[in-house]
């Protein structure tokens, strides 16, 4: 445990010193705040865009606060996941191809602990970034529209946070399985897309698939009678554990990928 704490503190220091702790949350805040703000000013933006024939009347129904929050989550589902994958794709692969693991993993270090420390650091980053982003969206929605129901927001936060955590963990696992960080990002994004598309197509058959998470999170705002989320939570935790175990296994099998 003491050794694990040392590794986690190293990861934390790395987040700080490489400014990841700054730019990832900043990107999340900007992305999330943009949605309520741009929705609110959409009629004005369109009116100023020109090209409209004289006398054209645009009528856009004012969305509810809940709808705005749900849109924010959908926005995050594209760019948020991309940022997350890009920021963590090299977490293991770069150390392994660069030769750092050749020095760290010849010490009496637990492979699971090594992966867990990286994952925990990522969890910290995701939590901070998402808290910032969701907070910003919630604030602007309350100011510009109406305060969304906090109880449903809380459940949505939890579900969506779990989805982001899963995205990070999958990227980490691919980063341990593959030599190239870019390939890890692509694979994890593709897998996440496949999960959410299949869950969207077959919501009944795949009601316990982790791909239901973003859908369920948005549904907290849109459809008060949204399905149960416990099966999804359990299956996601299972996938998380499997991803960590896979990463640890890959590292134990080949601690370094240096060619020379």
């Amino acid at each position, binding site marked *: 445990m*003491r*050794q694990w704490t*040392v*590794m986690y503190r*190293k990861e934390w*220091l*790395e987040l700080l*010193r*490489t400014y990841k702790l700054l730019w990832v949350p900043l990107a999340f805040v900007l992305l999330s705040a943009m949605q309520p703000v741009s929705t609110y000013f959409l009629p004005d933006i369109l009116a100023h865009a020109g090209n409209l024939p004289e006398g054209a009347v645009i009528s856009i129904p004012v969305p509810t606060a809940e709808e705005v929050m749900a849109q924010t989550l959908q926005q995050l589902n594209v760019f948020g996941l991309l940022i997350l994958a890009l920021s963590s794709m090299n977490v293991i692969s770069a150390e392994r191809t*660069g*030769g*750092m693991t*050749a*020095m*760290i*993993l*010849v*010490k*009496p*270090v637990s492979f699971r602990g090594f992966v867990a420390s990286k994952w925990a650091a990522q969890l910290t980053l995701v939590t901070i970034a998402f808290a910032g982003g969701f907070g910003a969206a919630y604030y602007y929605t309350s100011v510009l529209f109406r305060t969304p129901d906090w109880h449903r927001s809380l459940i949505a936060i939890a579900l969506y946070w779990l989805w982001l955590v899963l995205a990070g963990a999958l990227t980490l696992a691919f980063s341990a399985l593959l030599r190239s960080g870019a390939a890890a990002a692509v694979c994890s994004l593709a897998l996440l897309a496949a999960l959410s598309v299949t869950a969207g197509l077959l919501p009944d058959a795949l009601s316990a698939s982790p791909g239901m998470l973003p859908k369920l999170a948005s549904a907290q705002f849109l459809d008060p009678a949204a399905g149960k989320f416990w099966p999804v939570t359990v299956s996601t935790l299972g996938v998380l554990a499997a991803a960590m175990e896979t990463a640890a296994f890959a590292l134990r099998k080949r*601690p*370094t990928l*240096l060619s*020379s």
Partner: protein
Amino acid sequence: MSIAPKQAKPADARTSTEPQEAFVRFRGVSKSFGALQSLRQIDLALYEGRCAALLGPNGAGKTTLIRIVTGLLAPTSGSVRFQGLAPGADPRALIGYLPQHPAFYGWMSGSEFVRYAGRLCGLSKREAAARGTELLERVGLGAAAGKRRIGGYSGGMKQRLGLAQALMHRPKLLVLDEPVSALDPVGRRDVMDLLRELKQETTILFSTHVLHDAEELCDDVILLQEGGISISGAIGDIRGLHRTPALTLEVEDNRPARMQLGEWLSGLSHPSIASAALLPGEYAVKLQVRDADEARIYVLRQVLERGLPLAKLEIGHASLEDIFLKAVDAP
């Protein structure tokens, strides 16, 4: 004399004079990467407190062998056993390892990295700080360099830092992959001196191309060639086995000296000397001798009598380089 492809004198044979168990023992270790066989059937023993040099041309499998010792690579077949460890037990706590190209986190400072390495090996915060400062000093990275970010280090400084981090937990076996090849002459000298001190404290296995370094430092030599061991044993034994009954005499490289040497050669005849051959440049001659002692006295006398402007006289000594080249050239 030709060098037998088999071990000149197996390192194991020394157990008779030194009744100690091998600290690390390789049994039939092979490693293939796909179709490429990098190591074949390596049997090897490293003894506690001795310093072994791993030699061999590029691509002979030195780095592969070193990675197998450290556990970074698993052998395809065969086993590596550490003294006092059950088979399959994790030997990593015993080993300090310096890779050929040590890579660090550029955002860490040197002293942070050694402390991190120490703490990973189970040292307490205070121990790690004290030992880190001591080792940085010892490898020639002072407090000022230790505070700098590693991103700004030169290759030589990284090599020194790599050595310091490998020593943090006082490993019983120090494994170094080309520890001095990236260093300038001063750095090389420093590190060699440091290794000579460390030899007193721990068992060392290091690989190198620089035969002179091996000769200077090590007790045992392992010569790898195309994935197999072609020569291994104590350096003295190997020298003895490969001693050539030859004598090389070199005079100053100028015209009168060369003529004098030529004259002497043309009239040379002594029972202890079998043959003589002028070497390229015509200022040196290699004599094959029947009796080294007798030939030495005779040649020295001749040098004095004829006033040959002697520059160098070498007698019956096969350097590691000769042995290495012979073994590598042998088909």
